[in-house]
């Protein structure tokens, strides 16, 4: 499988933020999106996942192959760690909850309510959801926020295993995960500011 994005233009709040975004990603490869805050990394990732319509351009694979990991982990505070993960496993039709808990060192916390986890533990639970989805392309937005050094290393290992198994990962991140990956500077695709419309009639307001 190959993910290729061709001449993609994305908008945020109706204003174009990126245009002409093109890249390809083969099975087993990872791509890191870099760029200053507010440049449109999140918007690009949301567009790839199908949460937003692109203004123009082509994405070669269906959104059915992607698992989206957002800023927010989507955890339910009153459900236990296992129940949270179990829900996503059922939704995606998989059953490897225990393996995912084990991989992210959450087995001991499995019966604790998500509201009693630390920020880093919540993040690990949010990332464990990716394993449960069973989807080949991981689209991750700042996956390492609030993780400690050991957990970042752990997450790097998980990514490497995922890539070795023929998966792909697309990440917006500012830190080094220790994963061999190409980097894409999103700033080069910055959209031109919208032109002042010449037929703008101030009196009409």
């Amino acid at each position, binding site marked *: 499988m190959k993910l290729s994005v061709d001449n993609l233009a994305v908008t945020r709040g109706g204003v174009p933020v990126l245009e002409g975004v093109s890249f390809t990603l083969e099975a087993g490869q990872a791509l890191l999106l870099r760029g200053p805050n507010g440049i449109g990394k999140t918007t690009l990732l949301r567009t790839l996942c*199908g949460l937003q319509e692109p203004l123009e351009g082509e994405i070669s694979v269906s959104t059915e192959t992607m698992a*989206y990991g*957002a*800023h927010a982990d989507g955890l339910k505070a009153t459900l236990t760690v296992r129940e949270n993960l179990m829900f996503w496993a059922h*939704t*995606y039709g998989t059953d490897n909850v225990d393996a995912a808990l084990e991989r992210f060192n959450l087995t001991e916390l499995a019966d604790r309510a998500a509201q009693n986890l630390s920020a880093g533990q919540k993040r690990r639970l949010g990332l464990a959801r990716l394993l449960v989805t069973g989807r080949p392309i991981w689209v991750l937005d700042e996956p390492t926020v609030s993780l400690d050094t050991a957990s970042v290393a752990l997450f790097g290992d998980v990514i490497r295993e995922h890539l070795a198994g023929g998966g792909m990962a697309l990440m917006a991140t500012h830190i080094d995960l220790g994963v061999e990956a190409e980097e894409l500077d999103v700033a080069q695709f910055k959209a031109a500011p919208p032109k002042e419309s010449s037929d703008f009639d101030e009196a009409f307001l």
Partner: protein
Amino acid sequence: MIAILIRDLRLAVRAGGGFGLGLAFFLIVTVLVPFGVGPNSEILKTIAPGILWVGSLLACLLSLDRIFALDYEDGSLDLLATAPVPLEGVVIMKALAHWVTTGLPLVLAAPILGILLNLESSAYVWMLASLAVGTPALSVIGAFGAALTVGLKRGGLLLSLLVLPLYVPTLIFGAEAVKRGADGADAGLPMMMLAGITLACAALLPFAAAAAIRINLR
């Protein structure tokens, strides 16, 4: 999709889930009305169908904004939208979960609370039947309203204003069915209208609600 229903039911009965909020409100309304109106049993008998229906409608309204707002805030709505379930299915399941936790308790409580309002004995069957047939429409319409206002801060007021007019037909036919039942008249027609409204809402509004969510997530 069953997983969504199970999760929502589980969340509702856990601490802070809002289960019982509507039921408590309904209880308070029906207990207070006799105090306000006075102990004249004839008057109570006349207004009982209307009070019971208005009470359950407002009780339903109370918990509507929780349907999608909580999932929106913690990010699960984004993740659900990218999950391999159609958003229409998510809407149906969430509306169903809302009905099971809010509408169904009201249906079961109404006959008991009918005693407090001196409801005509022949009307009990119609009270149960009309609420059972009518409240699912309230949940589906409510889910649609909640989907429209999902991204808004303090969207509760707007939600109520949007949803209340849509509730009126259900209220009219529901209360009419009970009234006719109390008079011993044939309540078939209002019951059929009520069922028609519910079925039409359940068939059409999930699509509208899913479209509204997609736009609000952008």
